[in-house]
């Protein structure tokens, strides 16, 4: 999550620095200084290993193996290709950045759309559950004990437990619905 949140900023920064004539190592060093979360930490480790004598190519290959998100893998792969085959990294980064930005805009619009009906959904569930449970809880007191042919009045103490349990599950259901506000967050 942290990787995918920061990756676009890293690509844009690399694009700006490399496009202005700064070398790849100096660019990695700049990002390693901090401000880009886990990617800064990874780059910092990479710089440390390079200064310890490990070739950049080997370090990038190790990193490629460890990284989890697609965007991050693509970035490391682009860097690796530049080191091994001298490819045009700036052009590739610009394309990657453009595509990611487009994806991010789409993800935000989708997020906004998906949360459109959330207030009404939560209210509906929050209403239906308690109304049914309120009736269940009150019924034993509404029925006269002498006229009770169903025997429901004998279950009055148990009804309280049923109501509490029902309310707990209603709340749990509402939390699960509301959780999409967190899980589908595109991260800005």
């Amino acid at each position, binding site marked *: 999550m942290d990787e995918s949140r920061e990756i676009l*900023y890293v690509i*844009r*920064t690399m*694009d*700006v*620095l490399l*496009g*202005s*004539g*700064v070398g790849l190592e*100096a660019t990695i060093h*700049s990002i390693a*200084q*901090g*401000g*880009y979360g886990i990617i800064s930490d990874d780059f910092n480790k990479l710089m440390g290993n390079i200064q310890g004598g490990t070739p950049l190519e080997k370090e990038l290959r190790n990193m490629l193996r460890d990284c989890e998100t697609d965007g991050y893998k693509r970035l490391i792969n682009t860097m690796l290709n530049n080191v091994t085959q001298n490819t045009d990294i700036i052009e590739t980064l610009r394309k990657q950045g453009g595509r990611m*930005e487009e994806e*991010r*805009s789409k993800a*935000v619009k989708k*997020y*906004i759309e998906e*949360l*459109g009906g*959330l*207030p009404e959904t*939560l*209210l509906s569930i*929050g*209403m239906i559950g*308690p*109304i049914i449970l*309120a009736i269940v*809880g*009150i019924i034993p*007191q*509404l029925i006269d004990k002498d006229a009770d042919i169903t025997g429901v009045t004998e279950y009055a103490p148990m009804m*309280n437990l049923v*109501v*509490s349990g029902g*309310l707990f599950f*209603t*709340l749990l259901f*509402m*939390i699960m619905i*509301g959780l999409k*506000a*967190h899980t589908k*967050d595109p991260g*800005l």
Partner: protein
Amino acid sequence: MIFDLMEMLRSEPLVLIIFTFGVAGVMGGIPPMIERSRRRNIENDLPAMLEALSDSLKAGLGLQQAMQSEAERNAGVLGSLLRATLEESHTSSFDSALANFASKTRSSQVQRVMHLLSTAIEQDSPLGDILANLSMDYERLNDLMNQREEELMGRAILIILFLCLGLPILIAFIVGLFAPESKGFQLDGFHSSFSLFFGACAGMAVAISGRMLGRLGSMLWFVPIWMATAMFIYLGGYQVAGS
């Protein structure tokens, strides 16, 4: 009626306890809100500042001169911070003044830009182009952040209004009309369960709204007060409807 409400609170002390925490929470929640508003003002001003700096640099001015003219032009928080930075740069190095400026804004966007600028200055790179690119990038990012906030704000408020106010009022009136205390209904345990449910619902609603707007941390301060409000509305609503 007032005595009935007080009596009701006496038998539900949790509402009073949560309310006390709620008042403290509101006090704690205001500074992060002010801070966020200040930070967003700075971030929304950032692309324009970068563009102006880029134009000035391309016109042949030095970075300090460009910043000086931007500091004079910008009347917002960013301008005043920039003026302070330039004054500070007379007594210390320009680099440290820039770093100090970035930390004073408390904005990750500004900190990234300043860090990038320092690297570009070290590498003697063309600052005009870099600033122009950054300006466009951050403008797009801020537009997206503002769009998200504008479009989700209404829904976030709706969630809070529905779950913290609407729902407890509705259920309280239904229960109050069908099973009023005045007719001998014994609903103490029932009310405890329902008031806890509405408190939890309110807490959840505030947390969801905060998450939707991307400001969960600062919204958490307001969870207790909304919980107490929802619980009180339910218990009070029942008394009103049942009297």
